[in-house]
């Protein structure tokens, strides 16, 4: 690694503002905010859309969530009208949905849109992707049980010019009462925000998306363990955080509460431009951008030192999340740290990762 400050240039001469969706080729590349104005609006074929769902059959108790990834395949930056994307949730008739071949009613909000201004657009850099998981339950009618086919709207109803072709996914949905958009709306806007930057390939976007969903499972699983287990010196707790105390347990619980809410309610950006041998890095004062590096790509999705665990590690570093440090790396050093200093163990990112991964499993 050269001694030039490629990771630190941003502090020199003032902090560079970060825009979630601006083109960003490398961590030290200053974001060109003029891009948003200069990039042409996406036309047919410029943006590839892929849809995925975690399940092929949903009971009435399951939310109908679809993960949408928009990738700029134009070979140059393009701009998109935000309301024609799920960046802020479903604010338009974004999907074509049929049940047993018949069109399904859009019940989401209808906005009266003014003529778009510069701020109504987002820019996708060359090769850049935007991923959002959104709930369809408040936007489309799922009152009837049946086989539903979902694709992205090729043309936004109401005269939108942008064309998006996507794959079509089939899912069996058990009928349920309509959710009022007012109830579902708030969650659509904020929840499940994941986007990527730094020229991730489509394969990388897909493994980041899988890892992100597994990290959410780790975060909620850790929080529910710390909430539902009677606080005591359990094997899982003491291995990573040392001798039990109620203060210690509550501190770790509050950390996982913050980690969990960051994963479920914040816009997270995962950047692929790093080529360091490390797993990943973050700037603790710049939530929620995570730079993934070489070791990340060869890691398994879950388990010890996995992709999902790395995202837990990095999320814990942000000052507004758990403000952890890196006192020790690796399972062996983390176990020693738990024995030598409970305070440092509770302040150590890898200790949180290993607690969340819980591999091999302990109670």
């Amino acid at each position: 690694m050269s001694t030039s400050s490629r990771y630190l240039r941003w502090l020199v001469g003032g902090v560079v503002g970060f825009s979630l969706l601006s083109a960003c080729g490398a961590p030290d590349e200053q974001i060109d905010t003029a891009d948003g104005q200069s990039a042409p609006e996406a036309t047919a074929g410029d943006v590839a859309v892929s849809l995925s769902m975690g399940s092929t059959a949903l009971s009435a108790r399951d939310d109908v969530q679809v993960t949408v990834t928009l990738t700029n395949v134009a070979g140059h930056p393009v701009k998109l009208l935000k309301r024609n994307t799920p960046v802020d949730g479903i604010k338009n008739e974004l999907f074509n949905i049929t049940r047993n071949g018949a069109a399904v009613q859009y019940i989401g909000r209808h906005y009266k849109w003014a003529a778009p201004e510069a701020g109504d657009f987002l820019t996708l850099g060359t090769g850049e992707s935007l991923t959002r998981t959104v709930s369809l339950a408040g936007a489309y009618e799922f009152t009837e049980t049946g086989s539903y086919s979902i694709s992205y709207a090729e043309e936004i109803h109401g005269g939108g010019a942008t064309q998006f072709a996507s794959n079509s996914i089939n899912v069996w949905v058990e009928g349920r009462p309509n959710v009022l958009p007012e109830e579902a709306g708030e969650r659509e806007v904020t929840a499940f925000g994941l986007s990527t930057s730094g020229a991730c390939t489509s394969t990388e976007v897909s493994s980041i998306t899988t890892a992100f969903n597994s990290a959410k499972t780790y975060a909620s699983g850790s929080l529910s363990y710390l909430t539902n287990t009677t606080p005591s010196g359990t094997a899982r707790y003491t291995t990573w955080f040392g001798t039990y105390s109620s203060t210690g347990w509550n501190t770790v619980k509050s950390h996982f509460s913050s980690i969990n809410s960051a994963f479920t309610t914040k816009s997270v950006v995962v950047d692929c431009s790093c080529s360091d041998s490390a797993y990943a890095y973050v700037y603790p004062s710049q939530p929620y951008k995570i730079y993934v590096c070489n070791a990340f790509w060869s890691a398994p999705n879950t388990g010890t030192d996995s992709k999902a665990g790395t995202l837990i590690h990095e999320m814990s570093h942000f000052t507004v999340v758990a403000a952890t440090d890196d006192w020790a790396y690796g399972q062996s050093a983390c176990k020693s740290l738990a024995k030598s200093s409970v305070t440092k163990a509770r302040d150590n990112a890898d200790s949180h990762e290993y607690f969340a991964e819980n591999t091999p499993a302990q109670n």
Partner: protein
Amino acid sequence: MAATQGTEGATPAAALRCEVSAPQSVKAGEPVHVTFRLTNSTAQPLFVLTWRSPFEGEPRSRFLEITRDGTEVPYQGPMFKRGDPEAGDYATLAPGATAELKIEVSLAYDFSRPGTYRIAFRGPLMDVATQQAEVPRPLAQHRAMPVQCPVVETTIVAP
């Protein structure tokens, strides 16, 4: 490996002597440099893992504790999740040799406000070996070494 452990076990805590210097005062807005001088006071070469130490050359971890008039100054540089190190992650210090490491701390900490800044490196070094053949070695085999560096002060004055 057992012989190595014996050697390291016998190594006194002051195997690495540490001196630190910083300018007495710096005008606000100008870069702040802190210089660490680490001397191998043993008769063997030392192979030092650079992570979380002045050997990183530029702040790439929160290895320093910095306060302004007693208040913690937050670290704003990058923080890495590391796996097993590579050969290039170790610095070599010959017997009696001194490494002089000048760190531009203002790259990762806000020194723009006037006041008295205290800068401390409390160690330890994450992994130190005495045989070249032993490094790089996996995380599970790392042997930390304490190091005592004096705390330095620098005053930031209004320009």
